[in-house]
């Protein structure tokens, strides 16, 4: 369902980024990188009139011809970015929200791991499995 999932740290470098192997990975990395600007715009006070809800979920960041990009920011300024295939049966907003919820829960678990150094790349297998389950294509 999701084609690419990325976890970006507070300082805007990636902690975890993974895409389905069938496509050119570089393209997805670039898309995630450009979406960071949109995320910053949404969480800055300037856009207050538009995004007044005090929510962590940012919604659709921007659509391209093939893909849609969704964003989510935690209170510790860690960003989750998800790229979804447009041609797929349109995923409802609720499903995207629940996917981000799961991501956030797994990320919290990773943070609480005493052997994990905040700022390192995420190498937890449990996190990997959770992301894999979200990326498996439904035939």
């Amino acid at each position, binding site marked *: 369902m999701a084609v690419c999932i990325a976890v970006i740290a*507070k300082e805007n470098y990636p902690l975890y980024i993974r895409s389905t192997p069938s496509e050119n990975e570089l393209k997805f990395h670039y898309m995630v990188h450009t979406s960071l600007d949109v995320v910053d715009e949404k*969480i800055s*006070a300037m856009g207050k009139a538009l995004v007044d809800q*005090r*929510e*962590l979920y940012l919604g659709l960041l921007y659509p391209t011809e093939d893909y849609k990009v969704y964003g989510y*920011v*935690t*209170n*510790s*300024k860690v960003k989750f970015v998800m790229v979804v295939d447009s041609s797929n049966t349109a995923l409802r907003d609720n499903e995207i929200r629940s996917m981000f919820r799961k991501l*956030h*829960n797994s*990320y*919290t678990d990773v*943070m*609480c791991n*005493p052997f994990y150094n*905040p700022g390192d790349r995420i190498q937890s297998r449990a996190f990997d499995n959770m992301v894999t389950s979200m990326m498996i294509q439904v035939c």
Partner: protein
Amino acid sequence: MADEALFLLLHNEMVSGVYKSAEQGEVENGRCITKLENMGFRVGQGLIERFTKDTARFKDELDIMKFICKDFWTTVFKKQIDNLRTNHQGIYVLQDNKFRLLTQLSAGKQYLEHASKIKAGQGITTGNTGGLQESKVDFLGLLVAGSSAGERKVTSSLLTAEEVLMGRWGMWKVAKIIYSFKGSSLN
């Protein structure tokens, strides 16, 4: 009821354990304090990640400070911050009249230096603020004021690590947090 005592005892043991296992010269140059602070910092980060998972997004610094004073303090210390003051230019003073980790120490000058070690173990609060704020909040230091009940008011203050912190983070402007605790429960 018992879990309160568990945490307090464990915390005290940790503090004295770090000092006992310190090598020569580490006590003087403050490395023990740094170790304790780093431990607390890491614990604070994990805690904050869990607590803020379900709360609404913080709009500004004041929001973050209110969250710290109410929700976070209640969850960790079972009470709220008694007094929050700010100069609106980035300095916040949190006052806790009955800091749970220090209430068991008897009042008086004898234990004042040890109180500073206990506070170092409270780097938990640094981790908390560090996790929440982008680059703006620095943990400045702790003023421990011990005062004895009744007639004689002995007030002494310990500014721990303030100069070091100022030097290290000096280039970063804005918020610093000063915690002031009344060390004695006989207030």
